[in-house]
C-alpha cells in the first residue's frame, strides 16, 4: 500500500484499476506482486500477452521491410530474442520465485543481457546493447498499457493516469468508462480539473511521478475531495473507502430531494444558478441538475472536431444546445483559445509568454473571417432561442468597441441576406483582466452584462501561472486584491443597472459562494456536478449573514487571514 497526496480538484471517491496513458520516459520501479498463486499466474499471463503483442508487431515490421533485408533481419533478430526460451524462462523465474512484477522482471533480465554485451571487448558488439533496450521498450510498452489511440477501445471502467491531458485528448476519452483522473501536472483550474468537475468525475492532479509509480492494472483509490491517491490499498483501507463511497451516494440522493425547490436564501433572496458547458451534449446533465440555463458555453470545443469550423458547424452545435435548453438562456462565449488550450492551431507555436500573447479576442481580431463565422452562427441561433453573446479577454474600451463593431457589421450582412436574427441580442463581456475590472466604470456603458471570470482574473492580477506547480500556491482566490476587484465590478454594474454574474471556478466553492452573494452577486454559472450542493448551501443561509461574512472577509488584510476566517466560518476548506 502506497499513499500519495496531490491537489484535490474534483470531488468523489473512486476505486478501480489504473490505466496508464504515458509510457514514454517511464522508469520501472522495483516492484513486487503478492506471493499468491493467483497473482503469480496473473503476472505471467501479462508477460505472455506482451510477448504475443510484441511478436505480431515485429512480424508486421518484417513483412513491411521484405525488400530491405538488412532491416527485416534485424527485426527478425529482435523477435528471436523475445521468443528465446532461455530468456522467457529467466523472466518467468523472476516472477515465480522472486515475485517481480512483469515489468520489473523484463527490465531486469534485459538489463542483465545488455550488461553482458556492453562488457564485451569488441566495440561493435558492445554497441548492440541498443537492440536489447529496444526490445525491452517494446515489451514494456505493451505491459504498461499501450498507446493513447487504444483508449477509445477501453472495455472496463478505469482510473486514468497521465502526465497531463490536453483538451483534445479529454474530448476523445470514453467518459462513461473513466472512474477518476490522476495527472502529474495541473492545478485546480487546469483543463483536466474543469472537465472532471463538469462531468462529476473524481480527480487528483499535481501528483508527482504518478506515471512512474502507478502501473496499468494496479488497484487504486482516488479521493478527489482530499487529493489522496492510494496505490494497492489493503483490505481495511478498501473497506473504509467503499463505505465513504456509499455515504457519498446517499448524499447525492438526498440532494436530489431539493431538485425542484427554489434556489433562495432563508430570507427569500432568489439566486440564479446556471451551468458551464463545453459541449452541447452536456446541457441535458445541467438541466437534470436544476440549472436554469447555460451561463458559459465554452465554444472552443467546436474547434476540436473541426479545426476550421464553418458557420454551419457552429450553428449545429448551438441548435443542439438550444433544443435541450427548452427556452432557457444560453450565453455563448466567443472563441477563447489560449495557449493553454491550444488544439494545434498553427499560430501558438513559439510564443514565449502565451498567457500574455495572441489569444482569445486578440486572435479573433487577427482573423476576422474566423470570428465572423462564429458571430453569424450565434446571431442565427438567436432567432431560435434565448441566446446572448459574450466577448472574452477584453482589456480596454477600444477592444470592446472593435468587437461590437464587427458584430454590427455581421448583423448588417445578415439583414442584407434576409437572414433572421434577434436584433436586440444582449451583448456582454468577461471581466477577467485587471484592466477591465479597474475600468469597469467605462466599459459598463457599452454592454448589457458583465460576467466575472475568476480563473484568469486571479492569474493576471496575482501574476501567477496557474499551471506552473512551483508558483501554484501563490494562486490565491482569497487574496484581498481579488475581493476588492470583484466588489468594484459588482458595485459598478449595480449602479448602472446592468446584470453581473460570475462564471469562474471560484463560485464553485461554497466558502466563496456565500461571501460573493454577500458582495451582491445574484447569478452564478458553475459545473453541473455541483449545482445541487450550491443550491443546498444557498438554501441554508440568510442574505444578512452572507453580507456579514462578505464584510468580515473584506476586512481581512492577508490571504492567510481570509482563509483562516473562511475556515472558521465553513469548516475545513
Amino acid at each position, binding site marked *: 500500500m502506497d499513499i500519495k497526496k496531490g491537489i484535490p480538484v474534483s470531488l468523489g471517491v473512486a476505486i478501480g484499476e489504473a490505466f496508464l496513458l504515458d509510457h514514454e520516459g517511464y522508469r520501472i520501479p522495483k516492484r513486487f506482486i503478492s506471493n499468491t498463486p493467483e497473482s503469480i499466474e496473473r503476472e505471467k499471463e501479462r508477460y505472455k500477452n506482451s510477448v504475443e503483442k510484441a511478436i505480431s508487431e515485429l512480424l508486421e515490421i518484417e513483412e513491411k521491410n521484405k525488400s530491405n533485408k538488412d532491416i527485416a533481419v534485424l527485426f527478425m533478430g529482435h523477435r528471436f530474442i523475445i521468443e528465446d526460451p*532461455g530468456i522467457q524462462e529467466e523472466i518467468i523465474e523472476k516472477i515465480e520465485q522472486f515475485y517481480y512484477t512483469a515489468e520489473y522482471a523484463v527490465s531486469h533480465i534485459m538489463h542483465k543481457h545488455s550488461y553482458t554485451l556492453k562488457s564485451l571487448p*569488441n566495440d561493435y558488439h558492445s554497441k548492440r546493447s541498443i537492440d536489447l533496450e529496444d526490445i525491452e521498450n517494446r515489451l514494456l510498452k505493451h505491459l504498461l498499457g499501450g498507446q493513447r489511440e487504444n483508449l477509445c477501445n477501453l472495455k472496463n471502467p478505469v482510473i486514468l493516469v497521465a502526465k497531463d491531458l490536453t483538451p483534445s485528448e479529454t474530448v476523445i476519452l470514453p467518459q462513461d468508462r473513466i472512474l477518476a483522473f490522476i495527472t502529474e501536472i495541473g492545478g485546480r483550474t487546469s483543463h483536466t480539473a474543469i472537465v472532471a468537475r463538469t462531468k462529476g468525475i473524481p480527480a487528483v492532479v499535481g501528483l508527482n511521478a504518478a506515471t512512474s509509480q502507478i502501473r496499468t492494472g494496479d488497484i487504486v483509490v482516488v479521493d478527489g475531495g482530499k487529493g489522496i491517491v492510494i496505490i494497492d490499498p489493503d483490505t481495511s483501507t478498501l473497506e473504509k473507502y467503499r463505505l465513504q463511497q456509499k455515504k457519498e451516494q446517499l448524499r447525492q440522493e438526498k440532494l436530489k430531494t431539493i431538485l425542484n425547490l427554489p434556489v433562495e436564501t432563508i430570507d427569500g433572496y432568489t439566486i440564479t444558478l446556471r451551468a458551464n458547458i463545453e459541449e452541447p451534449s452536456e446541457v441535458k446533465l445541467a438541466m437534470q441538475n436544476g440549472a436554469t440555463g447555460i451561463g458559459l458555453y465554452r465554444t472552443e470545443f467546436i474547434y476540436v472536431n473541426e479545426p476550421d469550423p464553418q458557420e454551419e458547424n457552429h450553428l449545429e452545435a448551438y441548435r443542439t444546445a438550444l433544443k435541450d435548453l427548452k427556452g432557457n438562456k444560453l450565453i455563448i462565449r466567443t472563441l477563447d483559445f489560449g495557449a493553454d488550450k491550444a488544439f494545434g492551431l498553427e499560430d501558438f507555436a513559439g510564443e514565449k509568454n502565451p498567457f500574455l500573447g495572441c489569444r482569445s479576442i486578440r486572435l479573433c481580431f487577427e482573423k476576422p473571417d474566423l470570428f465572423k463565422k462564429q458571430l453569424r452562427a450565434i446571431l442565427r441561433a438567436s432567432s431560435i432561442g434565448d441566446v446572448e453573446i459574450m466577448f472574452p479577454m477584453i482589456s480596454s474600451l477600444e477592444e470592446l468597441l472593435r468587437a461590437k463593431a464587427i458584430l454590427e457589421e455581421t448583423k448588417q450582412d445578415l439583414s442584407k441576406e434576409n437572414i433572421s436574427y434577434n436584433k436586440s441580442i444582449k451583448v456582454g463581456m468577461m471581466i477577467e483582466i485587471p484592466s477591465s475590472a479597474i475600468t469597469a466604470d467605462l466599459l459598463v456603458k457599452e454592454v448589457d452584462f458583465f460576467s466575472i471570470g475568476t480563473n484568469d482574473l486571479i492569474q493576471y492580477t496575482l501574476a501567477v501561472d496557474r499551471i506552473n506547480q512551483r508558483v501554484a500556491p501563490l494562486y490565491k482566490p482569497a487574496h484581498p486584491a481579488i475581493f476588492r476587484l470583484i466588489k468594484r465590478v459588482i458595485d459598478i454594474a449595480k449602479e448602472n443597472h446592468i446584470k453581473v454574474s460570475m462564471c469562474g471556478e471560484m463560485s464553485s466553492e461554497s466558502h466563496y459562494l456565500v461571501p460573493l452573494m454577500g458582495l451582491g452577486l445574484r447569478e452564478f454559472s458553475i459545473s453541473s456536478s455541483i449545482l445541487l450542493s450550491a443550491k443546498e448551501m444557498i438554501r441554508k443561509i440568510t442574505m444578512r449573514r452572507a453580507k456579514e461574512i462578505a464584510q468580515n472577509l473584506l476586512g481581512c488584510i492577508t490571504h492567510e487571514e481570509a482563509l483562516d476566517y473562511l475556515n472558521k466560518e465553513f469548516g475545513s476548506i
Partner: protein
Amino acid sequence: MEARAKATVRWRAGLHIRPATCIVKLLQKYTCDVKLMQDQAICNAKSVIQIISLGAECGTSLIIDARGEDSQKAVEALKAFFDDYEDEDALW
C-alpha cells in the same frame, strides 16, 4: 548421431545480431541440438542472444557441434553459411 565441424568468422563486424539471426533461422529446420564453441565458451546456436553474447570477432575460429538425428545435415548447412554468407546480405 553426432557431427562436428570447424568454422571461421569472416565478417568484419564479427558474429553480431544479423548473422546470428540468420543462423537461428537456418537451424529452425533441424531438430538436433547445435552448439557453437569458442575457446572456453559454449553457446546454443539456436539462440540469438547466446550467439551474440559470445562476442566472436572477425577471424575467430569456432567449433560447430551438433547432436541429434539430422546433425550431419545441420552441420553441413551451418558450415556452408559460415563460408558463403556475405554480411549485409541476408538469408531468405
